């Protein structure tokens, strides 16, 4: 408020100064015109007249200024008082408004708080419900997953078991076959050896043990058999 009144005063002073300057300028201009038109004697008279006019003008200007200043200070004083009043009124209104606003804000805040609390409560309950559902869902899925995993594992183990058993049986069969083949081969070799040894032994033994009669008997017996079986004719 005080800033406004000082600005107003400054403006008034400025305006009055400008007005004076304009007046002076007009007077000077007229002086110059007159000076051009008028002679020197007239000029002195005019100059005197002018000086008197100027002094009158100055006096008037000073009075105007004084009045302006007076009015200005009155205005300023009035303005200041008005401003004070207005400021006080404004302050009172402002305080009232502030109080009202505070009350309203407080009320709103309290309402908001209660709403928020309610909202939070509902969120919590909703979250709890969701958590329960999620937990239940997760549990169910986990159970399903584990069950499925168990079944798959069991199936895989079963398949592995079957394959292993089959592979082992195949290998056992091959091994048995190899053993049998080896056994048969060795038996054949042994049999051949037995027969060869037998022949050799008989050859060595019988050559010494068989008498001439035995040999001749064998020859006659063989020939008789050959004749009976018609191998020789």
């Amino acid at each position, binding site marked *: 408020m005080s800033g406004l009144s000082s600005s107003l005063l400054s403006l008034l002073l400025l305006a009055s100064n400008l007005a004076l300057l304009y007046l002076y300028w007009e007077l000077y201009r007229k002086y110059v015109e007159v000076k051009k038109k008028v002679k020197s004697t007239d000029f002195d008279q005019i100059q005197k007249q002018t000086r008197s006019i100027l002094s009158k003008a100055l006096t008037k200007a000073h009075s105007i200024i004084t009045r302006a200043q007076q009015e200005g200070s009155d205005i300023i004083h009035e303005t200041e008082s008005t401003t004070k009043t207005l400021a006080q009124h404004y302050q009172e209104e402002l305080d009232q408004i502030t109080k009202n606003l505070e009350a309203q804000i407080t009320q709103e805040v309290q309402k908001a708080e209660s709403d928020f609390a309610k909202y939070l409560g509902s969120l919590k309950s909703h979250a709890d419900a969701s958590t329960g559902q999620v937990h239940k869902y997760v549990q169910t899925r986990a159970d399903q997953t584990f069950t499925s995993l168990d079944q798959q594992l069991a199936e895989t183990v079963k398949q592995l078991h079957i394959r292993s058993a089959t592979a082992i049986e195949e290998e056992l069969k091959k091994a048995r076959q190899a053993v049998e083949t080896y056994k048969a081969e060795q038996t054949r070799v042994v049999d051949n050896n037995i027969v060869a040894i037998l022949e050799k032994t*008989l*050859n060595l033994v019988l050559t010494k043990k068989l008498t001439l009669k035995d040999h*001749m008997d064998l*020859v006659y017996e063989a*020939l008789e058999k050959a004749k009976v079986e018609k191998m020789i004719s």
Partner: protein
Amino acid sequence: MPTTDTKNLFEQILETTFTTSQLTRRIRSLRYYITNRLYSPNKAQLPQSINEEDLYWLVELGENFYKNFTKSNTNQILENFYNQAKSTKTFLMYIPFDMPPEEMLALGQKLRQNYAPNLLLDIKHDPELIGGPALIINGKYIDLSMRKKIEDNKNTIVARIREFLHQ
């Protein structure tokens, strides 16, 4: 000399000759004896290659046999003997022992009784036969030896040995 007489003479030789080796040897001995008789009658000695058995056989042939031989026909007759020997039916026999002459004689007589009158034996030695003979008749090999019997009964013999071993 007619062929028929040569044949008769050859049959006389075959009466007491049973193997091919014996026949070959006796015909050779006969050649020596007859040549000596015709060309060196006073010479009593004969080659030492003629064994005692063949000497006895030469003597046993008799004068009736030798009167058929002259200086002109001896070679021819002996040549005929060789040819007839080649065409005579032969019984090739493999045996695992040494057969003495007397057994050879007996066997030869037996074979002539059973198969052919002038059958000749060709005896060869094969110790692998162990016992009993193997024959080749008309190009056919017939194994009657103990070796063949062992071979034929190999499985039975092996089974018996196995039984014996497992007892």
